[in-house]
């Protein structure tokens, strides 16, 4: 697959990886939740899965499965960090603690974070969670098991699932999702959630009912979120050049001292 090239170039060929979740295939066994808790040292989730009762990710649970009663019967949906292509949290972070790796996962680095929670304010999916009751708090969110990925393994949830979660490059996953839609006519909604939302995400969703019935946000824009602050940030250099010049000009123009030579810089 790799074309001939220098070794240093090889690193740049790394594609974004992601996770495809097939809600139609999911049986709601919550093995992924347990695997996640085990992999990251959290207590195993104890609460029951009841259709219509919304469970949320928290500072001790990075992914959740929810059940929804729909015309197609009980349908499951998974929630975790979406691993956006252009993450709002990364653009928001002033210390680069939130970081989009070249492999695709969005990770959080404790030594850099100052705990301002601007990532939480900016994330359109409300993903990062903050340990409010700790004197040395962490931000908790799914990191797609980045430690495992760089060791060549796959995320714990995917490894423990086998029917509904798939790990791969984003391109492969989109191809796989399309294939499933085409090969199973009438089963899936002809839309891959995550392909375009928020500028595209690493986590992709297939479902048999529209995702807005499964608690997913459908009011989000398709453009990337960092683009919203681009205009403002691009204006900064111009302001820094133009405003002082203008101010100095006005200052000289409005000075009406009889002796000009006395107090000049």
């Amino acid at each position, binding site marked *: 697959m790799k074309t001939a090239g220098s070794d240093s170039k090889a690193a740049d060929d790394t594609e974004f990886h992601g996770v495809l979740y097939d809600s139609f295939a999911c049986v709601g066994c919550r093995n992924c939740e347990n695997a996640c808790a085990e992999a990251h040292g959290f207590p195993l989730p104890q609460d029951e899965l009841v259709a219509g009762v919304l469970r*949320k990710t*928290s*500072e001790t649970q990075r992914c959740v499965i929810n059940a929804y009663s729909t015309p197609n019967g009980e349908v499951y949906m998974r929630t975790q960090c979406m691993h956006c292509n252009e993450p*709002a949290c990364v*653009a*928001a*972070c*002033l*210390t*680069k*603690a939130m970081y989009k790796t070249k492999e695709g996962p969005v990770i959080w680095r404790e*030594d*850099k*974070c*100052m*705990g*301002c*929670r*601007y990532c*939480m*304010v*900016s994330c*359109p999916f*409300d993903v990062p*969670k*903050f*340990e*409010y*009751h*700790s*004197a*040395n*708090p962490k*931000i908790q969110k799914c990191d797609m098991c980045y430690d495992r990925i760089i060791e060549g393994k796959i995320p714990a949830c995917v490894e423990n699932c086998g029917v509904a979660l798939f790990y791969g490059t984003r391109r492969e996953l989109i191809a796989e999702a399309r294939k499933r839609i085409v090969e199973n006519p009438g089963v899936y909604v002809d839309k891959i959630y995550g392909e375009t939302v928020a500028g595209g995400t690493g986590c992709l969703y297939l479902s048999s009912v529209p995702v807005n019935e499964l608690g997913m*946000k459908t*009011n*989000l*824009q398709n453009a990337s*979120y*960092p683009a*919203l*602050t681009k*205009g*403002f*940030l691009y204006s*900064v250099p111009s*302001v*820094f050049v133009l*405003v*002082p010049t203008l*101010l*100095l000009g*006005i*200052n000289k123009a*409005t*000075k*009406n001292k009889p002796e000009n030579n006395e107090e000049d*810089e």
Partner: protein
Amino acid sequence: MNSQAATAVSNSKAPTMWRFLLSEMKPRGKWFTWFNVISIPVIITGLVLIVIRFANGIGAVTNLTQEVPWGLWIGFDVVTGVAFAGGAYILTFLVYILNQKKFHSIVRVTVLNGFLAYLFYAGALLLDLGKPWNVINPIIGNSFGTNSVLFLVAWHFLLYMLAELIEFSPAIAEWLGARRAQRILSGMTLAAVIFGITLSTLHQSGLGALFLMAKEKIHPLWYSEFIPLLFLVSSVFAGLSMVIFEGSISNKVFSDQISEKSHKEHNRILHSLSGICAVAMFAYLFLQVLNFIHNKRWDYLNTPMGYWFLTEIIGFVILPMVLYFYSYRVKNITLIKVAAVLTMLGIILNRLNVSVIGFRWDAAVRYVPSWMEIVVTLTIIFIEIWIFRWIVTRMPVLRESPAWARKEH
């Protein structure tokens, strides 16, 4: 009496200097005042709460949630406080850039207020940080998140505090009787002012730009791509209304500091400021209306949030704007002060609506600040006033500079 002490210091050696500083540290004036009676218990409670916050985490004293991670400490202390501190850059613009000398007598006190505001709001920010010891990360350069609006705002806070300190520093030099330093520092004023105004335009708007990425989280009546511009324009009359409000109080409380001439001037200054406020508010209202129509927000008006929006715009923008215009015409100083208070309430409403009240207005669990958050906020404001009072009663802020400094000016 104070200037004599200062002159004495400048003429003698270091030990006298220490003695002078020590004697200046001592509290002056009556202890048993209404302000002290109220502020001291609040400050003590607040300090205890701050200890609890650092021992048990932010959740121990605040009601913040995972959906609403910024509450009163950011929405009021920082976002609103900085708007109120905007008076310093507007006044330095009037005095040093437009050379409007009639405002000169209040420029020092305004810059001092601005500086203390930034100092304490940056302090309040530290309380809200989960890992405040990492606050140096974006500053010393081991991790520059240069594509973050907050990075820009943080740096601007820091640099602007420096600029304001330089702008204010001649007063410190005059207090210490350091003539040479006073001359050098005064010479830096214009540069500091130009730098300071540039920083202010960027971070006043930057505070608004912070919320640009929260596009779907902020109620549509308060979210638009023009938040930065709205924040910048409103900081003009927010800052000046604060100057009017604070000036009116200082004029009474510190009347012994103020010369007869300045007292007389003060009403003339308030009158001029009210005109500026009226025009700035008109520009702001125009932008708000334009924004409202452009984004087609009509459907939201007949909802509870819509009524709240109308309350803000009609009661706290249009009404004080009309009051400012009217009181400017008839030269009614009392009405100007009323308009200033209404305007300030409007700014508090607006900033909180964007950052707290309208933020995740649809969340299942609404954030309401805890009493502890409010007490800590009051603590910060009271400590700031204590420091302000300490400085004003010692340095030539409200009163005129010592004769030697005026001659060299």
